[in-house]
């Protein structure tokens, strides 16, 4: 079976240790996590994890099922690249020697749709958001001049489908309440 890049989105309660439980599900199956980002979601109290992995569809499917099985996990999804809008942010710390007049900083920033965040006597910090290949391209462009530090965030993404998390949560709540009322949630 062919491997693809998948973005896994997980919505959870805020519970200590859950991050480890979720990552264990990947590592146990020898699936490397390429990036992971945890933040709040649009629903108060619900956290969202965005994980990027390269694997086969049947593996990611099983991983998502195992994640949903975790007591504090509310809902998990997996997406192919074309099903999401995603973004990453990168910071580049470059020596001020860069400003020796031989390099056209303005052109570099313009061409890359980047911006300068900070300028100090010894260094400047450039910020760029974009897909990985874009932030990577700027890194390669800067490298000949000496990049003092480089960091790229994990992926953040939103799904293209219009169904909102709150709708899923409402459906789950309705089903759960029906089970509770029927005395069948034991």
């Amino acid at each position, binding site marked *: 079976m062919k491997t693809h890049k998948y973005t896994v989105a997980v919505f959870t309660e805020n519970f200590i*240790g859950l991050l480890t*439980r979720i990552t264990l599900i990947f590592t146990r199956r020898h699936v490397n996590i390429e990036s992971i980002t945890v933040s709040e979601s649009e629903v108060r109290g619900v956290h969202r994890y965005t994980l990027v992995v390269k694997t086969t569809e049947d593996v990611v499917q099983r991983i998502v*099922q195992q994640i949903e099985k975790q007591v504090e*996990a*509310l809902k998990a999804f997996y997406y192919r690249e074309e099903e999401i809008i995603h973004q990453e942010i990168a910071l580049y710390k470059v020596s001020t020697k860069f400003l020796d007049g031989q390099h056209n900083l303005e052109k570099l920033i313009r061409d890359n749709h980047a911006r300068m965040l900070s300028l100090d006597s010894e260094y400047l910090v450039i910020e760029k958001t974009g897909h990985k290949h874009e932030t990577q391209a700027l890194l390669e462009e800067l490298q000949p001049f000496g990049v003092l530090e480089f960091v790229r965030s994990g992926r953040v993404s939103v799904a293209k489908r219009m169904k909102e998390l709150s709708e899923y949560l409402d459906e789950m*709540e309705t089903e*759960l309440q*029906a089970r*509770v009322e029927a005395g069948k*949630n034991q």
Partner: protein
Amino acid sequence: MKGAEAVIQSLLAEGVDTIFGYPGGAIMPVYDSLFDFTDQIHHVLVRHEQGAVHAAQGYARTSGRVGVCLATSGPGATNLITGLADAMIDSTPVVCITGQVASHLLGTDAFQETDVVGVSMPVSKWNIQVTRAKDIPAAMAKAFYIAKSGRPGPVLIDITKDAQFGDLEYTYTHCTQLRSYNPCPAPAQHAIKKAAELINNAKKPFLLVGQGIILSGAENELKELVEKSGIPFAWTLMGLSAMPTDHPLNMGMLGMHGNYAPNIKTNECDVLIAVGMRFDDRVTGDVNRYARQAKIIHIEIDQAEVNKNIAADVPVIGDAREVLEDLLPLVNENNHEEWIGEFLALRAIEEEKVSQEELFPEKEGLTMPEIIRRVSEKTKGEAILVTDVGQHQMAASRYFGFNKTRSNVTSGGLGTMGFALPASLGAKLGVPDREVVAVIGDGGFQMNMQELATIRQTHAAVKIVILNNNFLGMVRQWQQLFFDRRYSFTEMENPDFVKLGEAFHIPSARVSERGDVDAAISKMLESEGPYLLEVMVEKEDNVFPMVPTGAAVSEIRLS
């Protein structure tokens, strides 16, 4: 109230009357509080924490209640891990409470500090660390709810020593629901209808019984279903005893060392109905050649099991009893005599080629199956069978007869040697009125034999049968078949088990002659308290039938 007493009060609120444990520094406040409640809680002092958790498992499996154990931090807690892993893979409801160093010492490598929440994460259904006394009741309530609801499993609560010493206003509210946890989803009626259609049109239907039948209490519904539809069934190792062994539709055990007919027929049936089981590799053999010709109906409470190993044509997510209740009226009355006849013909082959000589040997040495047969006959299917792991386990699972459900306690998924002795103690305490027979190999017995002391101290009338071949028999069998008879470290020079039993003040005997077996077993069963019987069996017998690793189930070998 102190946190330590809140732990005990929470146990009482959950109806707990038996716990298995071992004291130590970080759990001492709880033990101190427990001392005031000895009239309400029977605490069993095991001799090793692994014994506590296996005993709690045995207790849970026979009684249907949650097994509880108590241990201290560090080594006390890590000694529970094997049992947690065992309970996890065999879906056994267990609550483990561990003490932890005071919260200000967390992360300092304090004496007997281990990150047991971290260590137990992959082998627990849920776990939590509690650092404040006021959080104890809610954590306990959640722990019990999660352990027993849906697909049951083990949970662990780690309580720091300062939380045990701390004060709280105690109130207890049972946990009955969690927003993020739907343990028992409503089965989809359209899926049930589709399943019924497949079943009604099937010419060669075959039903697989997993432990889910027992866990959901669906024994009666299953019986009605198979009798109405005339569908032959077979059980997994964990499904044993869900129906009476001698039920005419029972075709035996599935899997690697299961029976001949059900393994072959798995690859010939047209509709395969799997209820409350997870298609373990020991059941399926080569998954790519498993029941490819059949439409598969998978009735299972755990969504994550569906399509995990075997793709289902009709998955039905839900509690087995609920699903079977709904399915029952939709299924037509039928019989499949000709199809069943095919099973019986294969059974006759197995009897002729394997069972006859095993059960009624003409050779001199004693066989494991003949001993199992004798014990089974004498207990008339009324006993609870506890087995360890290895050849004796397979022999016992094939030949022991059951009349009642919840009568088989074994380590299925994890294959934990050393399980049976402590589990038999828990099994007996779970249902004190029933006879409990533990069948154990000489290897596995020595892995937790310290629990003889616990058995002695509790006077639990466990009947221990050691089938001694002075070998790690199953490994030796594989070495013989697949490693050119290179018996690498499988032969054992064993202690004198009779003297050992007697050293623990447990009446013990040894038998090695066929003529003495009957009397020896009778004496064991007639004795009042615990009893140890060592049976010297043939050194190099093999367990057959066998589905070799990587083979299809239909390639099962008789020799």
